[in-house]
């Protein structure tokens, strides 16, 4: 019997929601790490019981948590609770993210553009996104603020920056968006272990074809009125990118404004906003079995971060964009003013595939029929930051 496990990060803790394949009755576990901002929790595709979590706090900084039993118990990698530390220097520093400024990396990079146009030092603030390897449960990538990508190959105990991203040339021109200068999206290409995509607010999308050594901007076709040159190579506020793993060259993007697609691994983008009521938004995701079926949640505007007209509507396109239908069955259609953040939608791989999203109002909605109808799993969690789902067999 198949099961699903939904991993929910909120502003005040993590929650784990489990159900059988019918996805009608749910068990709710949590809060885990109560009181902490849980930016992201994600499981290893190789070992579903291996979960990684980003636990952060304005007071206490960054913590990385790991579970090896599907979320029943957790520990900081390298420092299990209750274990007496060995004498000598620490063996693991799971929350130590040090930017590479070494000459060995070729291009030491210490500053980026600040809001006032001056150069500002790179300062680590938090981990926004954790992306476990497709092949090794001990390898995991972290997208951080200020924007950089780190990799751990020892289960999260130690982290090393893939500094070719910041050092590729445009780094000093990157500047923060309203939410900070965060690297929030990491997509691994299952057909090519050397290829990876990332996105940064507000720098844009980037791709590596050599396992993270070198990177290039992939923003051609993006047009952003809020930067001096709307067609610039970088500076675009990409909110999220999604990919169906069976068709890795095709990418879908929710930009600050505009929904976009690329059919050539990001080399060129074209707009597919079509008949959406507004093309501002944060989330975007792709159907598990129909690679031309995509989902977004339109948000009113960059100045009003809630759904338009008081109606919570997921929009689905079955044509790869441009033609969109509103999905409303089971979702509030009056007096609703929530937001859905960029990592707060996920899709399982059952048939029919399940779609999940969480709101700033603390609701987590699930659809067991690819979006045709929705039910809340929980209604009153803290504001939801991220939603991931694992399909367990």
């Amino acid at each position: 019997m198949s099961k699903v496990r939904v991993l929910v990060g909120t502003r005040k803790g993590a929650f784990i929601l489990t159900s059988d394949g019918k996805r009608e009755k749910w068990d709710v576990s949590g809060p885990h790490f109560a009181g902490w901002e849980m930016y992201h929790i994600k499981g290893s595709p190789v070992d579903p019981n291996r979960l990684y979590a980003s636990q952060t706090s304005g007071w206490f900084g960054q913590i990385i948590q790991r579970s090896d039993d599907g979320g029943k118990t957790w520990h900081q990698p390298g420092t299990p609770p209750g274990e007496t530390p060995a004498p000598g220097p620490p063996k693991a520093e799971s929350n130590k993210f040090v930017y590479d400024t070494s000459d060995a990396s070729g291009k030491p990079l210490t500053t980026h553009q600040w809001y006032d146009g001056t150069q500002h030092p790179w300062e680590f603030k938090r981990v926004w996104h954790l992306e476990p390897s497709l092949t090794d449960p001990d390898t995991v990538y972290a997208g951080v603020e200020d924007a950089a990508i780190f990799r751990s190959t020892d289960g999260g105990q130690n982290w090393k920056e893939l500094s070719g991203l910041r050092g590729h040339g445009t780094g000093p021109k990157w500047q923060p968006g309203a939410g900070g200068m965060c690297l929030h999206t990491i997509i691994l290409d299952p057909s090519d272990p050397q290829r990876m995509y990332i996105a940064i607010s507000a720098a844009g999308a980037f791709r590596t074809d050599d396992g993270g050594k070198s990177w290039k901007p992939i923003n051609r076709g993006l047009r952003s009125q809020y930067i001096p040159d709307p067609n610039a190579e970088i500076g675009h506020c990409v909110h999220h990118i999604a990919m169906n793993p069976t068709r890795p060259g095709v990418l879908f993007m929710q930009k600050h404004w505009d929904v976009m697609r690329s059919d050539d691994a990001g080399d060129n983008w074209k707009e597919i906003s079509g008949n959406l009521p507004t093309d501002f938004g944060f989330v975007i995701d792709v159907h598990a079995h129909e690679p031309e079926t995509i989902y977004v949640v339109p948000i009113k505007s960059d100045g009003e971060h809630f759904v338009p007209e008081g109606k919570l509507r997921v929009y689905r396109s079955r044509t790869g964009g441009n033609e969109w239908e509103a999905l409303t069955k089971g979702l509030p259609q009056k007096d609703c003013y929530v937001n859905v953040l960029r990592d707060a939608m996920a899709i399982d791989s059952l048939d029919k595939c399940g779609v999940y999203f969480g709101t700033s109002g603390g609701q987590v909605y699930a659809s067991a029929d690819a979006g045709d109808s929705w039910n809340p799993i929980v209604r009153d969690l803290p504001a939801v930051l991220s939603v991931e789902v694992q399909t367990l067999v």
Partner: protein
Amino acid sequence: MASSTIRVILPQHLRTLAGVGAEVALNLEGWVTQRSVLDALEAQYPMLRGTIRDQVTQQRRPFLRFFACEEDLSHEPPDARLPDAIASGAEPFLIIGAIAGG
């Protein structure tokens, strides 16, 4: 130099991380300073590394405060000696989360 047993009171979230109660006891050799107290604390509870001082700069995290003997010692140099009452264990060294945020 004499050894000391000092008492440290942690904020709630750090107690949870370290799996301890409100107060922990630390044995120190040598001068009792902010730095030596925090070094001993992190050696005994490595899960707290980076939560009180920045992992890289070793600076106190901005929203934390160090109190002792009814004084705010947060801005004292990290190698300044703490009051004798801390070194003797008569008074605890308090790590306090600033009242901020939601």
